[in-house]
């Protein structure tokens, strides 16, 4: 069993129900495996405790490249421009890949330092189930915000792929808001809902300076949210909301 699988198990993401059950069974009987999982959780807690995780440029580039590869492999054509039709199940899988990639990149970076550019990202198949969506880990939410900021920093509105990816991130943001609401974290849900129109404006605005200003606003508000998460995490158990 790889660390990546354990990490995905911890994040409740990207593993089939069958695989989750296998890991649960193994954890029940294997003390060493439990210890490995505990180390991983500790690492993530340490990562979570850093207010800002600045990924080095090569890692950011690789993350974006990976997201685009995933997108081109699994995405439908770009969305309709002014009404947002309900998405297919396959389109909904992309954010799961994307969030997993974000979380994994953060974890790998803190474990291995700057990774060689040629090293492929290890991604488990994204077959998340509704049962796995019942929890939302703070590292995953932070990864979502980080991933969004990473995309926005170099966002090219003339690229249909990047617009489609931003559209998926907006949809993912909605999902996080909905889950936060369901899990009783209305405070997080409200901030995420407030961020959505900013992202929609970024997606649709043409003037570069205005777009840069909107991105600055997004970064301020997202970073403020992370500061709040950090403050809460230092007082309480940090894993899940």
């Amino acid at each position: 069993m790889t660390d990546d699988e354990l990490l995905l198990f911890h994040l409740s993401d990207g593993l089939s129900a069958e695989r989750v059950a296998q890991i649960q069974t193994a954890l029940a009987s294997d003390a060493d495996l439990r210890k490995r999982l505990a180390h991983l959780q500790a690492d993530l807690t340490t990562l979570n405790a850093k207010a800002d995780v600045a990924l080095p440029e090569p890692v950011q580039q690789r993350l974006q490249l990976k997201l685009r590869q995933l997108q081109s492999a699994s995405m439908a054509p770009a969305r309709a421009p002014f009404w947002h039709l309900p998405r297919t199940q396959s389109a909904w899988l992309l954010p799961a890949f994307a969030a997993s990639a974000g979380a994994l990149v953060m974890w790998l970076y803190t474990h291995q330092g700057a990774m060689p550019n040629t090293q492929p990202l290890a991604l488990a198949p994204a077959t998340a189930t509704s049962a796995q969506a019942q929890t939302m880990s703070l590292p995953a939410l932070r990864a979502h915000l980080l991933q969004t900021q990473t995309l926005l920093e170099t966002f090219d509105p003339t690229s249909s792929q990047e617009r489609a990816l931003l559209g998926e991130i907006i949809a993912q943001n909605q999902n996080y808001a909905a889950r936060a609401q369901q899990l009783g974290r209305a405070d997080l849900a409200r901030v995420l809902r407030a961020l959505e129109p900013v992202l929609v404006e970024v997606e649709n605005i043409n003037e570069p300076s205005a777009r840069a200003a909107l991105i600055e606003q997004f970064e301020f508000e997202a970073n403020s949210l992370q500061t709040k998460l950090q403050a809460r995490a230092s007082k309480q158990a940090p894993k899940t909301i």
Partner: protein
Amino acid sequence: MLLTNSRRTPLAVAFFAASSLTGVAHAQASATPVAVQQAEQDAAQQRDRRRMPSDDEALAIAALRALMSAPPERAVPLIERTLRLQKSDLVKARALFVLGQINSQAARMLLLKSAQELSGRLQLEAIRSIGIGGDSGSIAALPAIYANGSPAVQGAVLEALLIADSKPMVMQLALTAKNPKQLEPVLNTLAAMGAVEELRQLGARGIGGDKLVHAFAVAGDLAGLLNIARTHADSGLRAKAIRGLGIIGTPAAKAAMLERYQNAKTALEKSAALEGMLIANDQKSVLTLYRNSKTAAEKREVFSTLSKMGGDAALEAIDAALQGQTP
């Protein structure tokens, strides 16, 4: 993470993003001198909102962010001073956001006072921050601000209520709307919230008319739309409801459109079903209809829809038509 599919659509949110913080369109539509002045002010605010901070402003904004983790009794006086003395509206706007995130009575009171007494962009930011903060007492004060506010302020209040997920408050605004123009953005807000029950209540009271049909569609209320599509006396409204099924676009909605086409009482309803299928990109149903078309006129109309869709089904039909066959 793959999470549950929210019914909230970005459609209404995009509406707010485009209009609530400016109100330009509303003001220009009126074209009175006051409205023109308001539009000019709104445009200036928009320009200021959409600019990058200077170095000094960036430093002040970084300091504000640090206040997020400071004790409220220390942070609130500093923000109050910033709002009073700082010259930059950009910095003040960020200060209002931080204020909305502080959990203290003093912060809530200062934010509400800002929403009530400030003007222009900063008032809009304060209203938004109340929505983000989510304090029920402050949110309860928003309808009064809405009642006396400009279209831009009204848009900001609706956005705040959307952020706060306060369906009862939006419902209250729907019930007290003075005219259809004022009601429409309120309906859009309810739709964006997925407030199906509230929309149905409005429908039962005869409020909303054809705008309500669109709201049902955006809110994803398949049963509500189908009820109108099947039973409403007005054929125009039935057609709008059928078209709205295309916005929902789920397999059940697609099946309903096909059924409505096959049982349509008027040509308008048939055309609406085809338009709905076009919106939902339901090539399979349209191809089925094409194959089953009984008259040349019907075949032409369905073929026209197929060709607008493009895709494999359309090419298959075009190829067959060129060969004088039915695919």
